[in-house]
């Protein structure tokens, strides 16, 4: 009896320590990034830092405008094709495909999620970049290449979460809709998808977060020129790439500017997470 109580107490202490450690790690990282990055943003001025297109750190010109736009451009272009494709695949898996086929598809999607990002980058570099160079022009290292690779990488997130959202819709909705004389597709598009919309929005925002934070694959296929891209075929540098490319030799204000880039990214992700929790809360209030 006594021994049981003792071991239970120990387990509880262990759990508390583990939970505390992860929370502490997050707090320390956050404080550190802000501590290193904020002074430079204050020095340069937040407007200038965010919107100035001139990034010449050796000259003391720290504007990440081109990178902010680069990140947004690559992310947006990847979402443009992967969101519709992902949602359609989710509908197929949840509603249309026979269970066996849906199961096979689910395994492939899992596989897609498990591939390391450097492999995606390598594939992009060897296959997609030359394809763009040969068929569309430019050097191949481009916004488009980044958008294609990133889109493939965030498909699993969009597919899995959308599919779960669709599967969570009570089957009574479908029965009722069919009993009113609706076809299967009318039921899907007019009842099931609207009912699952908060889950699908969550899927999109999480995909967006993943896309904006992705570094290695994007770094390998986008060319990384720190200038504003003037077309889909132009090279581009994202905020994440900016940090990786220059952290090896940066010092002083330059290093601080990289931390400041990290701070901006961090704030982006926090905003996206807030958007997810708001959308999920809206979903529960609708009674789903």
């Amino acid at each position, binding site marked *: 009896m006594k021994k049981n109580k003792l071991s239970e107490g120990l387990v509880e202490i262990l759990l508390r320590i583990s939970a505390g450690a992860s929370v502490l790690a997050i707090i320390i990282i956050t404080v550190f990034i802000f501590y290193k990055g904020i002074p430079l943003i204050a020095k340069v001025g937040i407007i200038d830092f965010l919107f100035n297109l001139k990034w010449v750190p050796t000259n003391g010109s720290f504007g990440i405008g081109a990178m902010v736009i680069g990140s947004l451009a690559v992310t947006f272009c990847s979402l443009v094709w992967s969101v519709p494709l992902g949602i359609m695949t989710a509908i197929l898996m949840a509603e249309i495909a026979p269970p066996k086929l849906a199961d096979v598809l689910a395994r492939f999607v899992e596989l897609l999620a498990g591939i390391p990002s450097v492999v995606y980058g390598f594939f992009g570099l060897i296959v997609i970049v030359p394809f763009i160079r040969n068929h569309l022009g430019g050097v191949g290292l481009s916004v488009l290449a980044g958008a294609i690779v990133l889109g493939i990488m965030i498909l699993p997130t969009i597919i899995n979460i959308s599919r779960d959202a669709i599967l969570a819709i009570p089957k009574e909705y479908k*029965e*009722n809709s*069919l*009993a*009113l*004389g609706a076809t299967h597709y*009318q039921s899907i598009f007019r009842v099931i998808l609207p009912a699952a919309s908060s889950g699908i929005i969550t899927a999109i925002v999480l995909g967006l977060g993943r896309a904006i934070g992705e570094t290695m694959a994007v770094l390998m296929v986008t060319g990384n020129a720190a200038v504003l891209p003037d077309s889909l075929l132009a090279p581009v540098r994202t905020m994440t790439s900016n940090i990786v490319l220059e952290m090896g030799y940066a010092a002083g204000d330059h290093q601080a500017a990289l931390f400041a880039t990290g701070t901006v990214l961090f704030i982006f992700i926090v905003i996206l997470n807030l958007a997810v929790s708001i959308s999920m809360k809206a979903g529960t209030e609708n009674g*789903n």
Partner: protein
Amino acid sequence: MKTKLECKEVKVFYKDFQALHGIDMDIFENRVTALIGPSGCGKSTFLRTINRLNELIEGTRTEGEIYLDEKNIYSNEIDVVALRKKVGMVFQKPSVFPMSIYENIAYGPKIHGIKNKGKLDSIVEKSLVAANLWQEVKDRIHKPAAGLSGGQQQRLVIARVLAVEPEVILMDEPASALDPISTSKLEELIGELKKQYTIVIVTHNMQQAARVSDFTGFFLNGFLIEYSKTNDLFVNPHDKKTEDYITGRFG
């Protein structure tokens, strides 16, 4: 009294299990027909053969014929979508769609091609009035339907069925999730609806069957044991099993 539905030798199989054994039953127009029997006796399965909803469950097979106005709904020429427009269904648990009251009712007419706003407005109002719900909700028809009480939701579902102008309404234990007051409102409504529609209702509650129906069929283990006028069945059952069931000896 016109025969609305003529069921001949209806058999349903779930994979290897036979759920219905050759049901023969005539259902009359503008009458309420109640189906009673213990759980698992096949009454809901039979109800779902009339709008072919059993087909949603994989591995289900239906044999026999059901004639709706002398047309076999199991023949190959029948369009299931058109059939379900004619044969509406109210389920056990009211399931309102996560949209406004108005949109719930307008859903059926919209999918059947009505786009005119004025026409939709009048269908919505007419259906809500017919379902005895208009007075309670007329000031908030653009509010989410999920905010209604259980009894109101069930009447909303009935209004949604009425909006597609069916001829037959199937009800699968429509009052089992309702409180006594909502139940009596629903029963009153059923009495009014039969003037225009043919109603088939599955119920667990024998008093309810006695109160609302003109004809009653007693199902047991997939067989239709006895089918006659409600009064005769309850007062003077011919089969020993029917008598045992309605006197509460099993169930």
